[in-house]
């Protein structure tokens, strides 16, 4: 199978290029894209990519496979390969450090901005802050995000304004803490999101939902934040 890989080494290359590799796929097996990258690395050990857990938990190997963002370790070749060809590019919209490795600073900065931790001004209880099963259930579909950045880097609004628009991943987490019954800083959190960029740059095109490897729905979370802002502001 022919695999075309985005290559860029800022120390030696003036501009990025695509390099083709011929990879022999083991007969009768539907291997993962990450396995294909390992086979490519056997041919050329300078091909660079991030990986860690190889089971869709760490979120390190987010990349663009035949035009679709996803995690290489849990994407079968049969899901992405068309006409026996695979094109691998780094996540779009972020600066490339080398080959398939991108600089995620802008993404993490937006995540940091939404204060992704519980804030509670009530006196600390003797043992722990209790939460009813119903309130706990509100966090399902929110807490599972692994911050792989597949959604945010598939979002045109994030491409245009990565410094101002929080992006789907950050907003999913923003709602995770807005929805948490143990967090008492709802008012401050909403005040920080009311401007024309942070939340309202989302135009609801649902690219984030289409690519989330964990099957989460940031657009719905953004809708919930809008509803909370509406209740607060009208």
């Amino acid at each position, binding site marked *: 199978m022919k695999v075309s890989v985005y290559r860029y080494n800022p120390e030696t290359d003036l501009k990025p290029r695509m390099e083709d590799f011929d990879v022999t796929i083991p007969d009768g097996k539907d291997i993962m894209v990450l396995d294909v990258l390992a086979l490519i690395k056997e041919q050329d050990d300078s091909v660079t990519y991030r990986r860690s857990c190889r089971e869709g938990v760490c979120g390190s190997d987010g990349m663009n496979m035949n035009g679709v963002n996803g995690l290489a370790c849990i994407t079968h070749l049969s899901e992405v390969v068309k006409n026996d060809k695979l094109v691998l590019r780094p996540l779009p919209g972020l600066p490339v450090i080398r080959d398939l490795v991108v600089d995620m600073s802008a993404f993490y900065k937006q995540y940091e901005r939404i204060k992704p931790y519980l804030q509670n001004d009530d006196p600390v209880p003797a043992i722990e802050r209790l939460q009813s099963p119903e309130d706990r259930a509100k966090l399902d579909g929110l807490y599972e995000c692994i911050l792989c950045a597949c959604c945010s880097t598939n979002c045109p609004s994030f491409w*245009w*304004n990565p410094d101002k628009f929080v992006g789907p991943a950050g907003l999913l987490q923003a709602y995770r803490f807005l929805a948490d019954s143990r967090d008492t800083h709802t008012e401050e959190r909403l005040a920080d999101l009311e401007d024309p960029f942070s939340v309202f740059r989302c135009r609801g095109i649902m690219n984030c939902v289409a690519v989330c490897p964990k099957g989460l729905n940031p657009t719905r979370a953004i809708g919930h934040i809008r509803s909370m802002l509406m209740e607060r502001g009208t």
Partner: protein
Amino acid sequence: MVTNVTSFGRSGLSDWLVQRVSAVVILLYVICHAAIIINTPDMDYLQWHALFADPVMKIFSLITLVALCAHAWIGMWTVATDYLTTRMLGEKATFVRFLFLVICIGVLVVYLLWGIMILWSV
């Protein structure tokens, strides 16, 4: 909190709401006029004049005109802040974006005033 002084309502929530409400107003106006035109196949100048001389139609038209201007301001502002950015144009982006917005808003103000003059001249 990201601040921006050139947006229509200075608040994301207000802009978002105004854009949706204004869209509904414009849609109602279009439907209303389409219905009138379909139901009056042989409309002549006098009927058309009488339609716009009606105070209810004048107020509806004026509301739609204001809604259209607000809708266009928010829309053009969004387009400008998406595409005319430092990432796309470099250092001159702020000047280009500001100039673009001033021209857009200027055209909209002229459009609004001219529209009022036309509506009140009937």
